[in-house]
């Protein structure tokens, strides 16, 4: 460990690089023995590992002793004569070792990558904030209500989603054709999506920089950033999800990074921060200082008009979604970019296609002094260091290694020599087959539970325009765009109401919010067509039958006019259909006086006029407005279940809607 193997001899793979980490194949001898080594002086190089060094660009000092000319000079001495002249402007910081500055193009690309990460993360957040209808002062009354921006754009560009739904539905839905563009980009320049674009990746990049403790810096960080066997897990996950997709379930959406980002930030982080801001600014509003009140008021106005929804949103069991986000971000403390390296099926998908990339790395192994600076900064754990082959399928193309290398070893070029490159994922055939088998078994395992074919849960009320449940599960990737956009907070991530297969698929919880009669935004943002892009005309049924998502029922024992002789019918007032699906029966009913009569006589009775509501199941669309506004607070006297939904030919009440040609 202490002495560096002599450079003059044929370059052996460095034992601790390949010996402990079994996945890196031994380097081809011809690759490393060809270049004549110009500096054959065997200088013992202390391994920088033991001393905890900062992970930032300031490198461990001991590594600087490798080049002969600077071996005796202080680290900040001028570069030796044979080194190229110092690069002007961009590379100001003196690098250790030979101090050869990175090429200007590498520096430019590194900064371009940082700018791109900031831009795409900001764009993602902007789209997320715009995933919600805030109305417009400029729109005409009869203009259809649509979002002006393609807020689901990141999902449309997601080839993992496209591939999964292609396998399940044998079609590419509308905007998902854009994912070809990302595939083309990957085949041109590798996994730049992971390093340059992916907002979830940027989040992990940030947390991997923020979080590590002593254990995550210096030597331990170098160790963590080497290629590890556990990085294969994402490929196995990918294979399992794709095969499950072929079977008919888009369950892989649970692991898609864009879906996770939308779901956890949209349903957890944003409502949480909104809650906090409402509490703090609300507290500022009651302070008896006019300036503070005014500032708080203006802050609330601005936030409400630009960032928040029009009211506080609450989501069913959203704590679990946020818990998983926090857990996967915290994992960066132990393994930098744990998510991206180990679990991300989109990264794996792009990794499979990265073999076609025209842009890639070449390494001049002979110049490598094992300073490990490349590893300190490596994002993908793709073996950038000398002495081993570069793993193209793992590389995020962040350009950190070329910028960190002080010895002119690493260069990214178009059409590079691939002799020191591994282009394909290093998966094992048996495990891959086992993953495929697990994916194939997912659907039968999920469906023998009594959640779909039999004993379908009455509260699985799908959004309007949703396709039939089996087709729905083929398409729904649980991205939560529909839940984020719903203006009434009506759509929620299901927990296990729709079975394990339906985890975090959208269901309508009418008690929290009802389906707004003329709103079709959920279908507009759905990237996969699980909710179709219906028009207002189709939804409300102008000149055609309306789209029903369920049917309302009365609980006469709790209904005020039915059992408590009290006028109410708020449900009828809110019923949006015309003619109304709720009609009232006018009755004069006796009501007993609460007090006994005089001299112990039985209490008197008087007559009250009441309107008792009924549901016309042929008109009810199941929007849940009645359930939402029912004044019986805890358990409403009118409630919606999914029976009678348009999308199903079997989940029906009425004879005329029944189709016996369909299996029940």
């Amino acid at each position: 460990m202490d002495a560096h193997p002599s450079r003059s001899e044929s370059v052996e793979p460095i034992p601790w690089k390949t010996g402990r980490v079994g996945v890196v194949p031994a380097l081809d001898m011809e690759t490393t023995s060809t270049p004549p080594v110009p500096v054959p002086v065997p200088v013992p190089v202390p391994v920088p590992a033991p001393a905890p060094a900062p992970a930032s660009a300031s490198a461990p000092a001991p590594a600087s002793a490798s080049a002969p000319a600077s071996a005796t000079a202080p680290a900040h001495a001028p570069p030796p004569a044979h080194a190229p002249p110092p690069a002007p402007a961009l590379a100001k910081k003196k690098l250790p070792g030979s101090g050869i500055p990175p090429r200007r193009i590498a520096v430019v690309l590194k900064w371009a990558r940082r700018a791109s990460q900031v831009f795409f993360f900001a764009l993602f957040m902007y789209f997320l904030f715009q995933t919600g209808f805030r109305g417009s002062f400029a729109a005409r009354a009869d203009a259809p209500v649509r979002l002006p921006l393609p807020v689901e754009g990141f999902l449309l560009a997601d080839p993992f989603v496209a591939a999964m739904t292609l396998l399940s539905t044998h079609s590419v839905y509308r905007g998902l054709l854009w994912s070809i563009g990302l595939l083309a980009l990957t085949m041109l320049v590798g996994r730049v999506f992971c390093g340059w674009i992916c907002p979830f990746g940027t989040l992990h990049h940030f947390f991997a920089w923020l979080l590590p403790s002593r254990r995550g810096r210096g030597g331990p960080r170098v160790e963590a950033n080497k290629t590890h066997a556990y990085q294969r897990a994402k490929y196995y996950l990918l294979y399992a999800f794709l095969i499950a997709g072929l079977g008919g379930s888009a369950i892989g959406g649970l692991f898609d990074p864009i879906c996770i980002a939308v779901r956890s930030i949209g349903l957890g982080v944003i409502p949480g921060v909104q809650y906090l801001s409402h509490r703090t600014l609300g507290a500022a509003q009651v302070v008896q200082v006019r300036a503070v009140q005014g500032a708080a008021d203006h802050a609330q106005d601005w936030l409400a008009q630009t960032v928040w929804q029009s009211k506080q949103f609450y989501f069913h069991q959203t704590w679990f979604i946020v818990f998983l986000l926090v857990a996967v971000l915290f994992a960066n403390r132990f393994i930098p970019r744990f998510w991206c390296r180990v679990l991300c099926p989109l990264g794996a998908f792009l990794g499979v296609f990265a073999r076609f990339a025209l842009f890639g790395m070449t390494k001049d192994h002979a110049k490598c002094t094992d300073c490990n600076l490349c590893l300190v900064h490596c994002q993908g754990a793709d073996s950038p260091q000398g002495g081993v082959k570069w793993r193209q399928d793992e590389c995020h193309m962040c350009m950190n290694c070329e910028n960190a290398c002080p010895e002119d070893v690493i260069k990214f070029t178009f059409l590079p020599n691939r002799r020191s490159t591994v282009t394909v994922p290093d998966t094992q055939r048996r495990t891959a087959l086992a993953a495929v088998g697990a994916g194939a078994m997912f659907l039968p395992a999920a469906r023998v539970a009594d959640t779909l074919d039999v004993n379908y849960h009455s509260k699985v009320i799908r959004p309007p325009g949703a396709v039939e449940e089996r087709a729905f599960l083929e398409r729904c990737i649980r991205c939560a765009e529909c839940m984020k956009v719903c203006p009434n907070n009506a759509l929620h991530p299901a927990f296990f109401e729709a079975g394990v297969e339906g985890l975090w698929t959208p269901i309508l919880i009418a008690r929290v919010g009802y389906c707004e009669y003329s709103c079709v935004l959920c279908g507009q943002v759905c990237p996969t067509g699980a909710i179709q892009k219906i028009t207002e005309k189709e939804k409300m049924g102008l000149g055609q039958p309306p789209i029903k998502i369920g049917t309302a029922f009365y609980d006469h024992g709790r209904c005020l006019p039915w059992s408590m002789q009290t006028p109410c019918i708020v449900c009828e007032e809110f019923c949006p259909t015309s003619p109304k699906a709720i009609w009232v029966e006018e009755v004069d009913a006796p009501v007993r006086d609460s007090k006994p009569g005089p001299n112990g006589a039985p209490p008197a009775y008087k007559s009250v006029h009441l309107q008792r509501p009924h549901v016309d199941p042929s008109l009810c669309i199941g929007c849940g407005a009645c359930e939402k506004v029912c004044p019986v607070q805890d358990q409403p006297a009118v409630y919606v279940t999914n029976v009678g939904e348009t999308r199903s030919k079997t989940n029906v009440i009425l004879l005329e809607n029944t189709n016996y040609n369909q299996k029940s």
Partner: protein
Amino acid sequence: MSPEKGPPPSSGVADKPGREPEVAPPSRRDALLRLGSMAGVLGASAAGARLVWDKGGFDVVQSAAVRQVRDYRIKERDAEHAQLAIARAASKEEGDDSPRPLATPEQLVRRAVDALGGMAKFVSRGDVVVIKPNIGWDRMPIHAANTNPEVVAAVIKLAHEAGAKRVVVADGSCNDPNRCFQRSGIWRASYQLGAEVILPQEHRFRTMRLKGDVLDEWPIFTTLVDADKVINVPVAKHHNLAKYTAAMKNWYGVLGGRRNRLHQNIDTSIADLATFMRPTLVVVDAWRVLVRNGPQGGNIDDAKDMHTVIASVDQVAADAYGCSLIGQRRENLPYLEMGEKRGLGTMRWENLRVKEV
């Protein structure tokens, strides 16, 4: 602290010779400091706890008994001006089937308000004028479930002409407010005239003491009550429970919270709200009137063109007259009688100075 590691650094302890440093008693200064800090923390905790001590029990905190009302009426009125004005588009001649009425909503609003003495009688220069239309439902103007945007625009224009500093349009909607404000056409119409449109966001509600018969303390849409003048601009329409809704029922829009319980005693709720809110002026839009399936409607066949605008300083009289538009009799509306008994106005509208223009 293992003995192999040697004696610990002495922390101000005077090491007495002959005793192990570990077992030597602390110095007097150290002991006093420790005792003092213990006493200080304990005392502060006890004092703090006593300060916020809750003795428990089910005593309901009685809210202050003062009723809060919002009275924006103009006190002095000239006897020459009408108190109730009805402006109708002139009836067409026989055989004229053209759909265009013979007046615009703006003309009708002008005629009606002028009959009451003109907007300058109500709005002073520099006033903050709040206009409260009915923007309750996600319906378009043709459905007549919300106030006609042209009527709202006309009132905004009159207020501006009278010198208002700011004109604010606001309402607390039933459906999604963004959608109601946009699809009613009122947002666009108001914005084009430079009026400020304020949506009922959560932070704009504060609890106020209405102290009515059924409404005690409720969250109130502060935008509607922070004004110099308030103009009520409801739409006249059918209501399945209250039978007719216009001026008095329009104040449902100032309430936040759980409005769905008001329907259990809808007439008293309406009277309570009309007691709380006494507008400067009422301009009832009956340009197009929902005569069936109110308050939400949804079918254009349920609405009927009436090309009428009613202006009044008396919200009870405005409703007592207006209910005849949908064929309702004022005796059938208990909230009118309650309003009259409470001195909010008169349901005998013919006893007022009435002007048809």
